[in-house]
């Protein structure tokens, strides 16, 4: 066991890093092959003869190809890293062992900004469709359609919302805006329309 592995914090960091998925070798090969193919694409001029000007062109396209390949591989690895650290963060939050506390502050900060599930409920027997629209879903009715309960009167939807203060409204039958009768309301200073207010925060 190395000295680094004996350190509990470093050991945990190493454990998390080992969980990262291996890079997609096939994808990397395909990108490199595509860049290589672009490199030998015939340019204007005599075949087999490389003029100084053509040599510069080839270098430019090689650079573009390599940049594209690097960007692709970078994005792929970044995505894998981000996904893994997110799941790792969720795992760490559940840990209660006090010896593992040194890694908590960073995770707690990430968790503070993570969206929180919030349920919206509205009462209407006559509506055919109801959506909740607000700044948390960019006022897009398609993103939060409410579901009618079995009694036919209560509608609800639960959606993740970032911590903070949000303005929203209910949109009935794709046309009528209605405020939440159970929430405070505020006038939008820019558009002059009233909206309901919700404040959400993590316990």
């Amino acid at each position, binding site marked *: 066991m190395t000295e680094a592995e004996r350190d509990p914090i470093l050991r945990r960091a190493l454990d998390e890093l080992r969980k990262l998925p291996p890079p997609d070798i096939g994808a990397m090969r395909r990108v490199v092959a595509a860049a290589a193919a672009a490199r030998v694409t015939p*340019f204007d001029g005599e075949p087999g003869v490389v003029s100084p*000007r053509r040599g*510069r*062109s080839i270098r*430019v*396209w090689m650079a*573009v190809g390599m940049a594209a390949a690097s960007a692709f591989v970078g994005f792929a690895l970044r995505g894998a890293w981000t996904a893994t650290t997110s799941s790792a963060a969720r795992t760490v939050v559940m840990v209660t062992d006090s010896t593992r506390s040194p890694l908590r502050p960073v995770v707690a*900060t990430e968790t*503070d*900004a993570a969206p929180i599930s919030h349920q919206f409920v509205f009462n209407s027997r006559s509506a055919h469709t109801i959506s909740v*629209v*607000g*700044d*948390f879903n*960019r*006022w*897009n*009715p398609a993103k939060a359609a409410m579901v009618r309960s079995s009694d036919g009167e209560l509608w609800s939807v639960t959606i993740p919302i*970032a*911590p*903070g*203060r949000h303005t929203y409204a209910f*949109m009935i039958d794709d046309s009528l*805006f209605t405020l939440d009768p159970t*929430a*405070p309301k*505020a006038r*939008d*200073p*820019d*558009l002059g*329309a009233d909206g309901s*207010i919700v*404040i*959400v*925060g*993590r*316990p």
Partner: protein
Amino acid sequence: MNRRALLLVGLIVASGRAAVAQDSLPLSNIDRETASLLVRIVDSARARGLPTDPIVAKISQGVLRRAAPDRIVVAAQSVATRLEDARAALAPKPTANDIAAGGDALSVTGVTKAALQAVRSTSPNQPVAVPIAVLAQLVASGVPAKRATEIVMELIRRGASNRQFVDLGNNVNADVGRGARAMASLDVRLQGLTAVLAPNTGAVSAAAADPGLQSGSGPKKP
């Protein structure tokens, strides 16, 4: 060929950026000139490192509510300006959520950049989106901005959790909705909250000397 290659790459990048901007904006019912202005506002905010979600949300709301195009443009520009102000007030390293919360708070009459700076100075290393959200809502409910700022700062000092902040804001909202005066509700709710928080550390603040923030003491200010 070099120039052609660079031009091609430039065009691809430019068209990609425009596609991203237009893809995220509900521009289908907006005339071309207005759409161009809105895309420019969003792109400019993005280039300055500001969160663009609040701007896009404002544009979407305007479109959904069938607001006049010029009003939507002014609204989007106002949001961008407030985000810029909020970022400056919450320096040095606010999160996107902090900036969005600060921008929203600045839309409430009475909340100033100085208030955001005061909150940030009390909590320099932690996210402040929720305390700022509650500050905004308290002021919107009728609490004077100075008093609301002092209270939020004091609660941060005393270790109030986000949940406790949210509960305070929602409880005051509910009381006001039932007809109570905002200040009266706030004083009563603070009595319950301060009773469970850590004792006052003696930090210098106007709120520290305010009887309404002392655990177990009755509210003396209306």
